């Protein structure tokens, strides 16, 4: 029952891939921009590799609703193998979009989305992460793609706030700041909308 000035996002990932972290980072950075935010995971039996769901609400007013999100504006799929087992577009609003971590194009992904006719976006988060960070951390590029596609945050301020956030998070490993910023920017450039 979201109001029009609220954006609701659902994240699908597998335990250990950082979908929850991406969700929490988005809440943090949107909060820094003065938005009212919620970021919360849905907890089940936690195992590495098991499907997990996390949610964001971002709005201009404080949101009192504390249920899960059933009719999201945007859906992020951090692991494309989830498409075979989870109805990821369930409840997704017609004017919304789904963003999938995959090397494939939106046109190639659409047939796997059970009749979804809205916007399909793809980003090769794995390749970007491996090229820049040398390892597979798909959550940062997925976050960049989500912000780009949803327009929920203004790009310039988003990047500036993320840099602050990374400086704090990686205080003991400053070499990771530049790489993470580069993956964010790269994914914002590369995300394909179809």
């Amino acid at each position, binding site marked *: 029952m979201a109001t029009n000035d609220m954006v609701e996002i659902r994240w699908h990932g597998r335990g250990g891939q950082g979908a929850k972290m991406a969700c929490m980072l988005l*809440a943090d950075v949107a*909060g820094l921009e003065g938005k009212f935010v*919620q970021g*919360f995971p849905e907890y089940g039996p936690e195992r590495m590799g098991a499907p997990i769901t996390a949610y964001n609400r971002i709005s201009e007013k404080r949101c*009192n609703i*504390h*249920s899960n999100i059933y009719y999201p504006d945007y859906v992020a799929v951090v692991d494309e193998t989830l498409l075979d087992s989870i109805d990821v577009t369930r409840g997704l609003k017609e004017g919304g979009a789904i963003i999938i971590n995959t090397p494939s194009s939106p046109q190639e992904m659409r047939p796997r989305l059970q009749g979804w006719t809205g916007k399909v976006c793809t980003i090769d988060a794995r390749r970007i992460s491996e090229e820049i960070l040398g390892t597979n951390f798909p959550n940062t590029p997925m976050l960049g793609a989500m912000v780009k596609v949803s327009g929920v945050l203004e790009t310039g301020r988003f990047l500036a706030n993320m840099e602050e956030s990374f400086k704090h998070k990686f205080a003991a490993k400053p070499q990771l700041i530049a790489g993470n910023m580069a993956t964010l920017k790269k994914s914002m450039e590369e995300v394909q909308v179809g």
Partner: protein
Amino acid sequence: MSKPLSGNEAVAYAMKQINPDVMGAFPITPSTEIPEYFANYVANGEVNTEYVTVESEHSSMSVCIAAQAAGARAVSATSSCGLALMYELLYVAASCRLPIALACVNRALSGPININHDYSDSMGARDSGWLQIYAENNQEAYDNFLMAMPIGETPNVRLPVMCCMDGFITSHAVENIELLETDVVRKFIGEYNPENYLLKKENPLAVGPYDVSPYYMEHKVQEAEAMKVAKARILEVAAEFESISGRRYGLFEEYRMEDAELGLVLMGSSAGTAKAAVDKLREDGVKAGLVKIRVFRPFPGEELARALAGAKAIAVMDKSEGFSANGGPLFAETRSALYDLKVRPYLIDIVYGLGGRDFKTEDVEKVFGRLADIAVTGETYPVYSHMGQRSKEETA
């Protein structure tokens, strides 16, 4: 200062600002992230708390009891089965009149094994002599923990305070929060200066010895009287807190109840979800409202009766079963509170949300739909029922 924090982090931050003398900490599951965050503050030298890691919650509460009896300000945090393991000591803390503050992250008790939110843990401890204050969100969890000190430590109260928040829904969700400056917090909570304590050499005393029959009942009556006094003290502290924070608290919150014909009585984060549904129903012309119980112990019976007196039909929403076969614990209290009214609203009990079953605005609308029927027909059967569970066909 405004920033997004999880409920766990918010309460840990409140503890940091309080800088208690002792924390009894069982820092692994089924505890919470609260001792984990607090351990960082200890390690970084940001607090000078004696952080006592123990092997169980039975021991963490024992540490708090010993420390508080010695004259120190002690805190702890727990959840679910961890609280259950403390039960024996909860009664000891209360009867020794030790104003310990405990953060309880409400999660279901086993079994079946479940880690998600409901109130079965703290509802089981409702007769232990602890004050119980429930939060709707991270802001209230933070604010309530700060208020616990001046409430519990007041000489004519001197009772421990359990500050409850919804497991995962509040404890693990990041939301905006307004934090007070630490010097403002310190001034608000003041120093803990008990009259008598173990380390006071001028007045040696024993704490917690065997209490023979000729004395036991007198002590229990004093404890019961203190619980009554606590109600007024909670309101005084709320007024003081409003003057430093601008945030207003009472024994409960009435939301759009002024002319409400249909209403809910409920607790915690569900109240937020229900407020959104009430707003929508009001737009559609339904005179809906709700009462969010903040203080469950002491129970604000007379005040609640006054708040509900004008309504036609009320649903009490219980997020713990209770197994009385006669309704959940919140229903028992509410129905009892209404008994002395000459004209009472129709009252039903709905048990919902057990073990983390999600509670949506659509569920709230369904309950109000039923209340609208009851207001017309007067038919309350079944008075006590469950909602949100799947049917046999659905689970087959």
